[in-house]
């Protein structure tokens, strides 16, 4: 699964003042280990985002300062090959000591013993899950053990173009909006003559239907990760919203149009009045001066209930690292308040509670608090052992319903069957 935006050259200039000024005393991760003769050596840290490299380098240097004789080597592999290579490296015993993990891949690594457990209590604790949004910390727990320390997170919210709203005389979206408000406004905002559509309805999981499905009372994956929820009529309600947006209300571009011009790009170009976006795109919108004053963000409209899917990356430790102690100390540092603040002005929202304000403040024209508030009604991102296998099928089959080539009922049947089959294979392995 590809996700996580890079980008924003602007965002790579990390102010030093934020953490230098008053972030309290640095953590003391070293004391425990340094008693028994501080471990020396070189550890590697695998990341995939070139635009977050400066922050990661800064964190590495900072850690080195507190630990004489230790060096941290940040390694960059672009997203396109990151996972393939990581799997190969893991089987060969040469994966980085610490590396980035995302939700869809986590199950595979945790279930196959590629990750070291991270202590959550006692004097050796690497992190306290209570310091992080609960659904995020839970995402990186596998069968009762914590394997990942949340690094950052993103939630989904409704981004809208104020100019298009004002021109059509439609009230800006707010906290009170329901699906019905979304539909009527989208219809009123659609102006085909100008090539403007009310809302974008691409086949996007995290941005679109992973929110609307729980909002409709449906589910993607059962709690025990053995059963697909795509047969549940409420789940289908959450999908129907988007299909109707295209074919019934005609308030969204068609799937073909959205293939040629990605929804986010259309929004940037002023051809979409509304779009569901992950928080990391805020920096993208901010980077374009022409867009900065035109767009803003509101909470997702509620269906039967309120929901916004939360996802984020975590730092994990490779099971066969030659420096398990050192690697865990580094993760402890990254998860500390100080470590979190090092990336607080980047594209991503730092995961640790109480370190997110600099992110909100870095783009003052946007109501970014919306993305933070979403944590309160967040739903966890659905993952299983081999998420990649079924999420690929999910996208492939759902796009047939979106394009209108097949009815949603037919797609629901074939998707449920395919997904349950893949989940059953996971159980066997």
């Amino acid at each position, binding site marked *: 699964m590809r996700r996580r935006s890079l980008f924003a050259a602007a965002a790579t200039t990390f102010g030093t003042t934020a953490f230098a000024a008053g972030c309290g005393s640095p953590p003391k991760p070293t004391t425990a280990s340094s008693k028994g003769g501080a471990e020396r050596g070189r550890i590697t840290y695998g990341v995939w985002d070139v635009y977050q490299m400066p922050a990661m380098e800064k964190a590495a240097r900072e850690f080195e300062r507190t630990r004489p004789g230790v060096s941290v080597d940040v390694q960059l592999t672009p997203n396109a090959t990151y996972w*393939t290579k990581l799997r190969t490296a893991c*089987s060969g015993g040469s994966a980085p000591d610490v590396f980035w993990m995302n939700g869809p891949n986590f199950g595979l690594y945790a279930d196959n013993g590629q990750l070291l457990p991270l202590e959550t209590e006692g004097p050796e604790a690497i992190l306290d899950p209570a310091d992080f949004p609960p659904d995020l910390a839970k995402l990186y727990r596998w069968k009762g053990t914590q394997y990942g320390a949340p690094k950052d997170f993103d939630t989904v919210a409704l981004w809208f173009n104020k100019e298009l709203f004002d021109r059509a005389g439609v009230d800006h979206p707010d906290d009170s909006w329901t699906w019905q408000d979304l539909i009527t406004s989208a219809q009123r905002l659609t102006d085909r003559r100008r090539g403007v559509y009310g809302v974008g309805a*691409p086949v*996007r999981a995290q941005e679109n239907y992973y929110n609307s499905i729980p909002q409709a009372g449906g589910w993607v994956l059962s709690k025990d990760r053995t059963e697909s929820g795509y047969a549940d009529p409420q789940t289908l309600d959450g999908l129907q919203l988007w299909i109707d947006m295209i074919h019934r209300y005609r308030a969204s571009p068609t799937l*073909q149009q959205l293939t*040629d*011009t990605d929804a986010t790009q259309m929004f940037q170009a002023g051809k979409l009045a509304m779009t569901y976006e992950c928080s990391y795109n805020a920096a993208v919108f901010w980077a374009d001066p022409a867009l900065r004053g035109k767009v803003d963000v509101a909470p997702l409209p509620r269906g039967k209930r309120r929901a916004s899917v939360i996802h984020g990356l975590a730092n994990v430790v490779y099971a066969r690292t030659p420096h398990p102690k050192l690697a865990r100390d580094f993760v402890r540092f990254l998860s500390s308040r100080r470590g979190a603040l090092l990336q607080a002005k980047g594209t991503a929202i730092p995961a640790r509670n109480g370190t997110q304000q600099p992110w909100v403040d870095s783009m003052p024209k946007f109501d970014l608090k919306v993305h933070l508030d979403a944590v309160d009604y967040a739903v966890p991102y659905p993952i299983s052992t081999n998420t*990649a*296998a079924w999420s690929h099928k999910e*996208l492939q089959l759902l796009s047939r319903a979106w394009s209108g080539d097949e009815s949603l009922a037919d797609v629901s049947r074939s998707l449920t069957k395919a997904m349950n089959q893949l989940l059953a294979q996971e159980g066997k392995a």
Partner: protein
Amino acid sequence: MSVDVEATAAAKPASPPPSEGAARSASSQRALRKRERRFLHRDKWWGYALIAPAGLGLAVFYLWPVLQTLYFSFTEWGPFGGTSWIGLENYRTMLHDPEVWQSLGNSLIYTVLVLLGIPVSMVLAVLLNLKGMRGTGFYRTLYFLPVVTMPAAVAVVWRWLYNGDVGILNQALDAIGVDGTYWVSDPGVVRFAVAAVGVWMTVGYNMILLLAGLQGIPQDYYEAASLDGAGRVRQFFSVTLPLLSPTLFFTTVLSVIQSLQVFDLIYMILGANTSVGVTNPAYSEGQTIVMLFFQKSFYDNQRAYGAAIVCVLFVLIMALTALQFRLQKRWVHYD
């Protein structure tokens, strides 16, 4: 050339002396020499020694991976290594996997369409080879540019050109009163759209090969033909085409191999490297067999199944190449 023939004849007293029409005799001499060519050296240890560096490198870095892949295609592969033998299971699955058949078909169609670019290259080469043509170096450079440009950049640009709503192509069609379409997301046309890019990428390379071949054709052949009263068109078919056939053959063989292996360009033009991913409504019509291999082994954690797919492709390429070598006797003339 005639000097060469004489020298060969001198070196090989056994072959009959040249006689009759010079051209015919030259070609029969060549053929004879080819058949009777003796090896210059018979010291086998020198042979092994000269081949060893390249051979060992290829064996370690290329042949070994191929054999490994062949082995993996008969196994089930855990995501972090660990294989278990399952015999022909992967191949059996392939037989019933519509995705495999469709993408194999897509690759074959793509290959045929890209081969249609060879006549285009041929026309360009003939034009550039016209007597008195000026600026050939300039044209050559322009036509060769696509060959040296980064595929990632090429794909982005073509996606813009093909854009259904705002693309230049549709704007141009609009101007002449033709309705365009969504070129990269319309299942009916996507194959042609990507093949056009394939032609665009290869036309310059093939043109230069063919141009070089054309320039090697001795002028007196044409003069002889025109003395016989052959017009331009007949000259093309009786002189140019036969004498160019070895180059055409080489171009065709390479085009087939490369087209069947096409991957990154189509992958990116379909938008598979962006958030669009597999949700392109024309994805299954555009997906090539190497794309499927890549998807299975790099993203879906099904490396063994991917191995089986690529093994089938390998056999297919070998078969098609062997077939072409077989058929070349019918149309390729070595002088």
